[in-house]
């Protein structure tokens, strides 16, 4: 499992947030978030302890924990084997590891129009 790099914005596993989260840097989220997450141009990683009930708008999204909500990614979405995702995913690319759970739609929209 990937661990957060130093210098990366982090929300630890004991942290609980309700509301709108936005930023202009990459974020590693291992706590509980309810609401919405907007990181346009940046990446979000939901760690293995992360429990997220939120819509996500980011450049890239990696999910190792639990997510309820739709994902809108301008680049890539990665669901790791421990991921549990309930929601629709729209991205240019997607990678799903064996063992990941997804309940929802996958819609690949490439920027070259294909």
């Amino acid at each position, binding site marked *: 499992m990937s661990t957060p790099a130093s210098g990366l914005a982090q929300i630890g596993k004991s942290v609980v947030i309700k509301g709108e989260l936005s930023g202009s840097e990459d974020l590693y989220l291992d706590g509980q978030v309810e609401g919405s997450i907007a990181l346009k141009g940046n990446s979000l990683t939901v760690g293995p302890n992360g429990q997220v009930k939120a819509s996500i708008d980011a450049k890239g999204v990696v999910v190792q924990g639990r997510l309820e909500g739709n994902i809108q990614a301008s680049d890539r979405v990665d669901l790791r084997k421990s991921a*549990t995702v309930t929601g629709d995913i729209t991205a240019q690319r*997607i*990678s799903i590891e064996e063992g990941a*759970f*997804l*309940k929802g739609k*996958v819609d690949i929209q490439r920027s070259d129009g294909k």
Partner: protein
Amino acid sequence: MSSVSQTFMKLFRGSSGPETVPAQGSPKLTRRSSGLGELSRSWESAENLCVLDLGSTSPANIRHFTEHGHRIYSEDLLTASTDPELLTKDEQGNAILDSRKFLADNLVYPAAHFDVVFCWNLPDYLHESLVKPVVGRLWSVLKPGGMLLAFFHTRDAGPDSPCHRFHIIGADTLEMQKIVLRREARRGPTGAVHTAISDGFQLQRVFNNRHIENLFRDFASIKFFLARDNVREVLVVR
């Protein structure tokens, strides 16, 4: 009640004790599918198909359809049917699953939404109380002319036929992967904690052709393909 529900779920999931083999460790077998082949030919030049996969989340299936420009929905109904909160009793006091609650939480889509539905072996392994309601819901979410593919064991397959996952690897080729029990507690989509979920399901019944025709009686047409591995593939059109 908890011991009754545990016994009920044990009978539903299979009586063998849990093993520690992870699902991704079980070998994959290749299988040619006439039903899939016919489906593939029907959508050869189709664009923007809307597909529903009712098996375990399959990266291969998602990749197969998204690479061709289609949208795919993934919904593991067998796993969803193991939610302990579905347990209830009928008028005779027998343990059943609450089909209304199940359909309130699952298969919630607009009417006439899907071009293709992959049921795989779902009807053979799904609890009796859910089979007809699920098929009724699938009829309504399929577009007119939409197609559904399902696999049914024949009597020769035997009562201990293992439940498989299916991965599309070609126009008419599948990989089958036996679902095995694993020691893992995972929180399901409703928040309930499941142990050994989505693994080790037991064959609930063997449909004969007439039962299958009756099950899909609201559909416009039905086609059977008999395979060597004691499986009937059934392709129905809404």
